[in-house]
């Protein structure tokens, strides 16, 4: 018999249905509600959603097709040794599921998504398509100047797309909304880290992912409700170990995988799934030049992740170690998509730093359409047991 569904559970199920819907009905409805509305999609890892919002557009996070789409056309575009997300994204495109999307941003994460930006230009010439390159030089005078210009260009592109100016005041208002969103997102993560039995990993995951498919105002309200619901959530506390998940910032694992990790005896207290809403770690300034503020936030207050260069050797992996400490994780599961250059090239360095800090870690690979959960459950279970044994 199913457990009675709690308020938090109801919110999560609603979010799950949004995430699961590969026809993107919620975004379509948003667009249809008023003439002239535009939807601007974006791929992992980071774009300044504030700018898209200030343009009056809906920023729509696209994270591939998960395990809910049969990839027929997409495989004809990629060799077997390339990850899944570009194929299922192409599948979404050629099957018309993205026909309502007016623009698409391909941020820098790796050469696969970079090249996909050009493929999109060739395949969908009517869609405004932009590759968005964030700086790898973090000096405000150098990388900051470059980035502020890039943001200015992005603003101009969006203005062309919509035919409307984006005023500084509108942008500041959007920044404030996204600051609110980031605060609420952090609060959910904190709440989960404090009492992980109340917030299953798969639930938190869909609550975050759905937020990238609806207007931020709506998501802010939803997060506030979810936080309140978590407060009164009553779930049995299990003797699980607390783990952080890293390496999963781009192609997303199927929900079954998240559930398997938990069923194997691990509470997820930190992760880098669909990182865009935690990419900036502090409020973006709402006074002064808003583009400069977004630039400064990226340079000064963004997470360490594989699509960013780490200028000082000593800082490599520091973020991961600190997050483990802050969230009280007892171990790290480094879960990387198969064939993922960023996650896999970083793996020895990040896991090395975790080991140096005495943090137990294990790794495995997955694909968005991984079906076999047994091996993952076994590995995660053995990992949980080993932590319990040695702690």
């Amino acid at each position, binding site marked *: 018999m199913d457990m009675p569904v709690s308020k938090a559970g109801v919110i999560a199920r609603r979010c799950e249905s949004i995430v699961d819907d590969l026809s993107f009905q919620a975004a379509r409805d948003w667009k249809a509600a008023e003439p002239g509305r535009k939807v601007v999609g974006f791929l992992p890892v980071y774009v300044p959603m504030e700018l898209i919002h200030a343009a009056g557009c809906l920023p729509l996070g696209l994270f591939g097709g998960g395990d809910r789409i049969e990839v027929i056309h997409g495989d004809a575009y990629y060799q077997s040794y390339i990850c899944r997300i570009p194929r299922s994204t192409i599948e979404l495109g050629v099957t018309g599921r993205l026909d309502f999307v007016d623009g698409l941003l391909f941020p820098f994460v790796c050469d696969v998504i970079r090249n996909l930006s050009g493929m999109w230009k060739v395949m969908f010439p009517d869609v405004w398509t932009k590759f968005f390159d964030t700086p790898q030089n973090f000096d405000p005078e150098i990388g900051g100047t470059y980035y502020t210009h*890039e943001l200015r260009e992005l603003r101009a592109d969006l203005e062309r797309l919509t035919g409307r100016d984006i005023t500084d005041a509108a942008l500041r208002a959007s920044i404030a909304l996204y600051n609110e969103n980031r605060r609420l997102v952090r609060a959910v993560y904190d709440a989960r880290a404090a009492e992980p039995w109340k917030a299953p990993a798969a639930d938190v995951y869909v609550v975050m992912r759905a937020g990238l498919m609806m207007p931020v105002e709506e998501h802010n309200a939803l997060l506030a409700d979810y936080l309140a619901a978590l407060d009164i959530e009553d779930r049995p506390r299990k003797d699980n170990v607390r783990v952080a998940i890293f390496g999963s910032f781009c192609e997303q694992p199927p929900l079954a995988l998240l559930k398997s990790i938990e069923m194997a005896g691990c509470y997820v207290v930190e992760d880098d799934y669909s990182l865009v809403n935690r990419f900036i770690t502090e409020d973006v300034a709402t006074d002064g030049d808003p583009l400069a503020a977004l630039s400064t936030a990226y340079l000064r207050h963004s997470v360490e992740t594989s699509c960013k260069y780490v200028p000082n*050797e000593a800082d490599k992996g520091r973020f991961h170690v600190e997050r483990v400490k802050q969230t009280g994780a007892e171990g790290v599961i480094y879960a990387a998509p198969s064939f993922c250059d960023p996650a896999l090239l970083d793996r020895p360095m990040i896991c090395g730093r975790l080991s140096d800090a005495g943090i137990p870690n294990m790794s495995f690979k997955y694909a968005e359409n991984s079906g076999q959960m047994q091996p993952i459950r076994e590995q995660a279970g053995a990992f949980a047991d080993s932590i319990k044994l040695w702690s």
Partner: protein
Amino acid sequence: MTVAVKEPSMLLQKEMIAGNYDAITSAHETGRKVSSTFVPGNLNELLMCFGILNNLPEINAIQNGMRRLSGDYIMEAEKGGHSEDVCTYVKADIGMMGRGNIAPNGKPFPEPDVLLLSYTGCYTFMKWFELLRAEYKCPTLMLHVPYEGDGHSTPNMIDYVVKQLKEVIIPGLEEVSGVKFDIDRLREILALSAKAEDDLVWCLETGKHKPSPIDAYFGGVYYIGPIFTAFRGTEEAVDYYTALRQEVKARLDAGQGPTLPDGSVLTDQKYRLVVEGPPNWTSFREFWQMFADEGAVVVASSYTKVGGMYDLGFRHDPADPLRSLAEYCLGCYTNRNLPSRVDILAQYVEDYEADGLLVNSIKSCNSFSAGQLMIMREVERRTGKPGAFIETDLVDPRYFSPANVKNRLESYFQMIDQKRRGANKAA
């Protein structure tokens, strides 16, 4: 056993490379500083201004691939926790370090004094040098070259690269070398670069002739050697390209094709191909011979443009040295977006009157490979010429299947024959 037959320019190049390895491995004795850096966006002229030697890990991996050492190195790196999925150049390099870091001259490489992370056209570069930095703990200078996502560089991109050159790279190299930067010295060096570049382009464009006096892929990798590595900007490179030009001109005048590894000359050229993607190095000669056996010559290739697209008109410019270096980095082949790559390849098929585009898709290299199936189909569509797709790897011998490659090539040539017959009938 067949003895490899080399053209005089190849011998000259061999000496140059050996000389550079000797200079690198004797750096301790001579007191010279050594940098590691990458081929695309290679700033050799700048390094020369500071008297810093240029060691290129990609080239070391190629050397180790050709000498069949890379397979073991890769496995060594994989045993050490490096994923089987990532670029084998990186693993060949890291595995070589694990085995004593021995240069092709048998002497150990010195540790680099600086890692010049010229970050152009490939994501892996960034992590490769983060990995090396963890080992060597030496200064690492990052030059971020933005990708030409819209098919061209913008003033903002150029300014950004120039600024990094001025404020990060040059001061960094001054510090490592103790030598003060002299922009006039850079101008002199760039003038020599441009001279050699003219001759390289002349040679590459002889592929338009029938028969082609060059093979622009298998032979081409030799032709680009000096200019893509530690010699661009040197007198030696100028001399090399003068000699190469004479050699190619002599063949052109004689109506001769390129010399093959077995010493024969490929003058009877049945198929003219444009090739996209890097070659396989572990079975390089065997791979080349498969083409030669069928009378196929490569008339143009994209791999010979990874270290600069000189044939599209770019030259290093002494009049505006830093901007010229920035434009050079921005314009390397893999830093151009996919529509531009389709344009370039389709244009090659037309300009070089090729029978079609062959893609050699490299497992290691997402920068090249992601999107190549679309590139192939798009070039086919635009030119009406058939394309073909083969899959190999750079330096991992596990991913070179001679039987598969040969089969694919044979059916491709049959397809071209059929197409020709169809065209003849229609005419």
